């Protein structure tokens, strides 16, 4: 019995770590000694990897909502600070919805979420010309779901940092 429990625990732990790391940059600085800054790695505060992993590139939304809660505003404030300190980068804000909706309504909902994030970043001082939004509706889930705990992870915006300029 003990043995079985242990096996189950290991599987769960693996599953959780796979989720946490999904879509993250490789941690290129993982092997570096404490205090060493590897340019471009997560240990480099001017790198997109730092933005993505240390600040956090995504925020989550309630069902059918594009409202920013306190936790979201806190992350976005740090995103804005980073963007203003690292002026060479631009960002595309992706808006996503969970699969509990129809395709076209969810495209519109994703756009509403991305726009809410964009507006907040502009409010915090980021130049509008450095930001663009794109909605993926329910087309790009990061989790495959059948319950609310999972759906909530797909109702998200992701701020994708790019060194390239924004073009339409």
């Amino acid at each position, binding site marked *: 019995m003990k043995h079985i429990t242990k096996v189950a625990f290991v599987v769960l732990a693996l599953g959780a770590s796979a989720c946490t790391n999904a879509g993250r940059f490789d941690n290129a600085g993982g092997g570096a000694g404490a205090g060493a800054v590897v340019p471009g790695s997560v240990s480099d505060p001017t790198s997109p990897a730092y933005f993505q992993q240390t600040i956090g590139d995504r925020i989550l939304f309630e069902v059918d909502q594009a409202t920013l809660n306190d936790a979201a505003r806190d992350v976005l404030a740090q995103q804005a600070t980073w963007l203003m300190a690292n002026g060479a980068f631009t960002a595309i804000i992706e808006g996503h919805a969970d699969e509990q909706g129809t395709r076209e309504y969810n495209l519109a909902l994703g*756009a509403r979420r991305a726009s809410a994030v964009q507006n907040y970043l502009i409010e915090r001082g980021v130049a509008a010309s450095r930001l663009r939004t794109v909605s993926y509706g329910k087309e790009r889930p990061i989790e*495959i779901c059948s319950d609310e705990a999972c759906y909530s992870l797909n109702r998200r915006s992701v701020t994708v940092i790019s060194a390239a300029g924004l073009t339409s």
Partner: protein
Amino acid sequence: MSLHKILTLGRMLTFVALSGLAGLAPAIAEPLRIEITEGVIEPLPFAVPDFQAQNAAATEMSRNIARVVAADLAGTGLFREIPSTAFISTITNFSSPVQYADWRAINAQALISGAVSVAEDGKLTVGFRVFDIFSQGQLGEGLQLAGSTESWRRIAHKVADAVYSRITGESGYFDSRVVFVNETGPKNARLKRLAIMDYDGANLQFLTDSSTLVLSPRFSPTGDRVLYTSYETGFPQIFLLQIANVGRAALPTPSGNMSFAPRFSPDGNQVVFSLEQGGNTDIYRMDVSGGNPQRLTSAPSIETGPSFSPDGSQIVFTSDRSGSPQLYVMGANGGEAQRISSGPGRYNTPVWSPRGDLIVFTKQNAGRFHIGVMRTDGSEERLLTASFLDEGPTWSPNGRVIMFTRESQGAAGSSALYMVDITGRNLRRVTNQGAASDPSWSPLQ
């Protein structure tokens, strides 16, 4: 079969009333007829013996055509095929008198006989007759259709459409096609491409490759063009595709972040669609060429999923102005909209029936998805399906059948196309190759 050949077929097909039948004047007191009502009906038993091969080259085709005709009719749920193993007599000569007693003995009510010949130049000629066994007479005149041998399935569908029409009094839907999205890969890394097939899943062809995400194709009412949403530029945008040469171009919409949810006007000259600017989605219409853009809604809520009434005078759409997605009807030039959905749950993807009397929609309620229909004033709502995820309905050309997307749950879940009768009966999966979503049904060809 090349796309070009499919498209030129329409001009090659000819209907010719069979000559030499004048002596067989039908003596039908009460014509064979299925009255399609909302009530449960007993499927009408019919027999389709192999068609008669008029020459050696037609042998295989004479069997295949009869099989397609039988599958079309049986697939409606309104007819039931009597297997050939039950036959007492069969048809050995297309012109010989029918042995009514032998067909009546096995309870066949309709008999379809046919003759097939293939000329040296590849021209296929199919003649057929429909008999009402109980009245002992022919139902309508015999007909002859001609086309290329490659078009044999279309000719078979036309035979089935004619039989269906004579018995039900409605036009058929078998000689039609469906444009849809073919899907591969898991849910969190899905690849999509536009595809087209016959309504029954045959003759599958791809119209785009999987390199770009594509969504929600919509057939033109003339059957020659498709509007769809593509991420080709990195951002969702409406494209127009010509089926004949698979040429495509972005629709010149007014500027915005995202254009999507397009549908043609009934005359095929205009498009109604959603445009998102600064996070807000509203409905616009304009000429397919890009001229005369007109904003039809102006609200901070989401307005999407517009669909014209068949007379072009009204538009049904989805809006969450009340707090959740509901269905509204407005004039084709915008203006005040009337909410028509009133039940619990969320309503999306309304599509006006080609008959004009019903609106089909996707409803989400209590954790389930449904395809349903209501009258155009919102009354008499009926849910036809229920599952983990049903959405995106499209009407058969005669307004009798609805095709939609059903997606199954979980990591191994995938999308498939299903059909259901507007009575809610005869739910079945459309046979095709691979996972599929977002069907749009063509007009009758």
